[in-house]
């Protein structure tokens, strides 16, 4: 067979374009075999238009799906757009828009919220333990980091590690309570813990600066909003890695088992109590990192900014994002950050105004001041999630995600089929 030059064009120094006529001739010669060889037709040739995903989707429904070149091209473009949106757009690279420092700060906030959301996801999603005091987890990390940098004059890198460690310690202490109390009673304890931290811990002036706030300068090299954004992204990547490995290793499996059925988990030899504490520790580490980044993001922090509303926001973004769904939680957190910072309202209003409605749509037409939009929209989204999409945003983006990773676009991908677990009679 003379397929070799077809499969590897440009192998012997000739350019790819020089091979194209040869492809055409070979195809005619090869007959039925030609389809299996799949010659590398460069994009733009008429063949491409026939190679849509839908066409072969019907033909080979049962065979393993492989996207054609056009399919890969489409996926590549979407990937590139996503990469641009995350990596380049906020810092004005290859961008027709002008993103100011205030805007990139919102983007950094979105990344920090994503870390916070992943932190709560470990507890609520993996271990099935509710926390209504997550603002205290984050706040403790924030004040630890600010104190170390401002009062002890140590480096940010030391401070973020200390914040993570202290976050883990306080989470484990709370976790010890959860071993005694379950369900609603433990939720109340976390609620009380959050309120206690806000009113008491964060009010100790010597440590937190009291009402005046605590300064938390940004680390050397990351003073500008643009470079700080990349610092936050770097930490998000680290947290995503840890979270991914958690779910793919023995600790994650142990948590999945004990969340659903502690009896079965213990019969597998899993020490249920200590793995619940592992979940608290991991959540505390993530929250500590998020707190440290929050502190140096705001550059001055006050105790009152870590109030119950923040805890509620964490629960909202984790559940609306989709419990146990890493991508969903990240998107959900970013969305709620935009909502919280008013960026969402601004975007919607500018679109609505462009469509010919009165300016300040929420205020003037709906009678809802912009700063309350997140308070109203959050619970609505929560209800919609619980009733229509139990898998949250993670479920909604699952078809796109499957498509992006080289699968078919399946509308039903990601549908959550959690079963009610009847207690094993033991």
């Amino acid at each position, binding site marked *: 067979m003379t397929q070799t030059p077809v499969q590897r064009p440009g192998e012997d120094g000739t350019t790819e374009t020089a091979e194209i006529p040869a492809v055409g001739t070979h195809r005619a010669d090869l007959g039925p075999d030609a389809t299996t060889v799949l010659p590398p037709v460069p994009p733009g040739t008429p063949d491409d238009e026939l190679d849509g995903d839908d066409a072969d989707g019907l033909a080979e429904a049962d065979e393993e799906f492989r996207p054609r070149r056009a399919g890969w091209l489409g996926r590549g473009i979407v990937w590139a757009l996503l990469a641009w949106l995350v990596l380049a757009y906020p810092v004005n690279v290859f961008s027709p828009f002008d993103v100011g420092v205030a805007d990139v700060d919102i983007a950094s906030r979105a990344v920090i919220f994503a870390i916070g959301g992943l932190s709560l996801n470990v507890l609520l999603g993996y271990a099935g333990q509710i926390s209504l005091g997550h603002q205290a987890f984050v706040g403790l990390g924030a004040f630890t980091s600010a104190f170390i940098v401002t009062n002890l004059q140590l480096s940010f890198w030391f401070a973020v590690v200390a914040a993570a460690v202290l976050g883990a310690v306080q989470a484990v202490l709370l976790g010890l309570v959860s071993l005694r109390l379950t369900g609603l009673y433990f939720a109340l304890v976390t609620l009380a813990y959050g309120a206690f931290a806000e009113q008491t811990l964060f009010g100790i002036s010597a440590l937190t600066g009291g009402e005046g706030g605590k300064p938390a300068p940004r680390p050397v090299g990351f003073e500008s909003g643009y470079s700080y954004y990349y610092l936050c992204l770097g930490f998000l990547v680290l947290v995503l*890695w*840890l979270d*991914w*490995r*958690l779910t*793919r*290793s*023995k*600790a*994650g*499996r*142990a948590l*999945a*088992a004990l969340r*659903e*059925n502690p*009896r*079965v*988990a*213990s*019969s*597998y*030899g*899993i*020490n*249920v109590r200590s*793995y619940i504490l*592992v979940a608290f520790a*991991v959540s505390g580490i993530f929250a500590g990192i998020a707190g440290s980044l929050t502190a140096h993001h705001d550059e001055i922090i006050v105790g009152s900014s870590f109030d119950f509303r923040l805890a509620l926001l964490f629960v909202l973004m984790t559940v609306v994002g989709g419990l146990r769904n890493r991508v969903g939680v990240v998107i959900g957190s970013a969305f709620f950050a935009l909502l919280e910072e008013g960026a969402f309202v601004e975007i919607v209003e500018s679109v609505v105004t462009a469509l010919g409605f009165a300016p300040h749509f929420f205020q003037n037409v709906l009678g809802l001041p912009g700063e309350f939009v997140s308070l109203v929209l959050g619970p609505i989204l929560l209800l919609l999630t619980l009733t229509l999409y139990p898998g949250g945003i993670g479920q909604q983006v699952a078809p796109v995600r499957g498509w992006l990773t080289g699968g078919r676009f399946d509308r039903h991908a990601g549908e959550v*089929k*959690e*079963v009610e*677990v*009847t207690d*094993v*009679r*033991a």
Partner: protein
Amino acid sequence: MSVLEVEDLSIHFGGIKALQGVNLRAGEWEIVGIIGPNGAGKTTLFNCITGFYSPTAGSVRYRDKDVTRLPVHERTALGMGRTFQNVGLVKNASVSENLATAQHLQVSYDPWAGIAGAPSTFAEERRVAERSELILHLLDLADVAGERVADLPYGVLKRVEIATVLATDPDVLLLDEPGSGMGPEEAHALGDTLLSLRKEFGLTIVMIDHHVPLVTRVSDYVYCLNFGEVLAEGGPDEVRRHPEVVRAYLGEEPEEVLAG
């Protein structure tokens, strides 16, 4: 030396005496059957042996070690593996995920190394997957490896459950009604499986079942429980013909019924 020895075990829930002075012994390589009517205390006995309940009085010894007060997961680590009456599996996970979870104690790395993603953990994860595959193959379950547990029929789940117990690397198997929901032929096949498992893994098996033909075929020794007490014990045929056992199951002796 006996593998498992239950001595004078009693457990009371308030005024209910669920078990009363039960003695049970399982020797190396033995298959011990436990029969008895509903509510006789069979599962409660298992719960005391495996650590889900702490007995009011008496002791559980495993290879001459007193384990009466040990928590469940430590008994699993010693080599006790058990199944549950209504399928003890993680229902929202796939069969192979359950097998991986059940290998918890065989996984060599520290949980924190796993979370950090240390390079050695990747190799160990591959070994875990291979072991799962091997066990599933052994029990003819290779074709359901990717299926979610909640989507599988009951009879298959009973076998999957045995596979997961094997994955915990047990020394003694405590099976709570492994044959429930199975027809006579399936139960017969299950008996063959149990006999071959004993041979291949050198297991001691204690099983509760209502399938009297299954129990009498595979067991070396049978206990019959009623109202929390051992009603009769001995060889399978001896127990089956024991007048007290017949009375417990049928209410009266068959002769009397016929005579009346």
